[in-house]
């Protein structure tokens, strides 16, 4: 349970931890678009080096990153294999029914594998070195431009922080409800389709009622403390840019420039 409260965050104090969460989030999001720029062996090598540099800069154990990749390793191999067998073009080495191994397929399978792994690694760097609360603040900051389109960003920020705050609480509550129902004979992992579908309601309904009550109580508490809508309020938790953010900025610009120079046009 305590695992869920801190999420995947692992405390540390290497360089990556000092970078502003907004910068980290932006780079993580843009990384996926930047990886599109890679289209030949040199660019893939460059992006791999940059990604591994970020991984090593966290100074965390390799195991942490392996745990990030592990749940998806089957999927990664499977998709790479599909690329290998179904892509045609270039030299054909082997063919049987609808399966072909071609030079084009081989190269693409390798690229898919690298892409998959790098995207997972860089996302792991993000979530492991930043506290969930900081990530939420960064997301709120990123959503701000949507104000131009009259998107209620303040309300969304409120919903984000409430959701973030209640995930651990509701998780504990869910486990408690499940145990309470189990102690009276409920079985959540057995029986046919309909029986299992029915077994969800004894968890969901109490959880739902609890949520309704919490919403009412919390809103009363907030209103009695003077909450009158999200506008016209100050911020207590403020994010500050620092000199470390220049490093991440240079890291990113250098990566994009190198990719633009060395990719096939």
């Amino acid at each position: 349970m305590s695992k869920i409260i801190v999420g995947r965050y692992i405390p540390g104090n290497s360089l990556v931890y000092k970078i502003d969460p907004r910068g980290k989030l932006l780079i993580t999001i843009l990384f996926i678009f930047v990886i599109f720029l890679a289209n030949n062996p040199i660019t893939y090598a460059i992006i791999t080096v940059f990604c591994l540099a970020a991984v090593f800069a966290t100074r965390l154990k390799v195991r942490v990153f392996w745990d990030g990749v592990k749940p998806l390793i089957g999927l990664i191999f499977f998709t790479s294999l599909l690329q290998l067998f179904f892509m045609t073009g270039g030299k054909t080495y082997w063919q049987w029914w609808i399966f072909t191994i071609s030079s084009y397929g081989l190269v693409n399978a390798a690229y898919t594998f690298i892409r998959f792994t790098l995207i997972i690694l860089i996302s792991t760097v993000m979530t492991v070195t930043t506290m969930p609360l900081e990530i939420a603040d960064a997301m709120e900051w990123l959503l701000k431009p949507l104000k131009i389109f009259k998107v209620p960003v303040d309300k969304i920020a409120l919903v984000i922080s409430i959701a973030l705050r209640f995930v651990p609480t509701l998780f504990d509550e869910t486990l408690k409800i499940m145990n309470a129902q189990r102690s009276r004979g409920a079985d959540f992992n057995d029986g046919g389709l309909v029986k299992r579908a029915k077994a969800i309601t004894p968890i969901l309904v109490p959880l739902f009622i609890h949520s309704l009550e919490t919403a009412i109580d919390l809103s009363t508490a907030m209103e009695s403390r003077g909450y009158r809508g999200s506008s016209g309020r100050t911020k207590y938790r403020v994010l500050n840019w620092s000199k470390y953010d220049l490093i991440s900025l240079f890291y990113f610009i250098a990566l994009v420039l190198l990719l633009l120079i060395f990719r096939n046009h």
Partner: protein
Amino acid sequence: MSVKKILRTNLQQMIFLGIVVAMKIILGQFSIGPITVKVGLGFIGSVLLGYFFGPVWGTIGGGISDLVSSAIFGNQGGFFIGFTLTAMAGPLIYALFLYDKPVKIWRIIASTILVTLIVNIGMNTLWLHIMYNLDFKAALIQRLPKETIVPWIQMVVIYFVLQAVSRVKVKK
């Protein structure tokens, strides 16, 4: 709707939205069924969002659920805006069929099929195609077996859940 009556102020609605989003995230961490066909429960959260908050706030709630769950648990397969759109599209479709409407079996069937076709098969495959440069057909083949079995299970679950949840409304 009586939940709306219970939640009188706008602030209550927003907080309830936050908590239902949290509920969706937690349900997404659970799954039922044997290992061969694991069905994640996150779709229940999408249904609840659509059913209670309608197309606008249900859709926003879906987006927030993706953001918050990636903040807490990390996004398996990386941060990508496409999957946020996916998380928004599900509640939107459920809202169009279920919001402010009586629980009918055809509504559940139609909305689930649409979500499966548009969201799970269409959009998610497209994102994988874009993100990992997968061959679209190959990505589709990989997803099809699961997506032909899971919707039927989802329909049964949605039926019981909505039945139960609409009972909650009447009692309060």
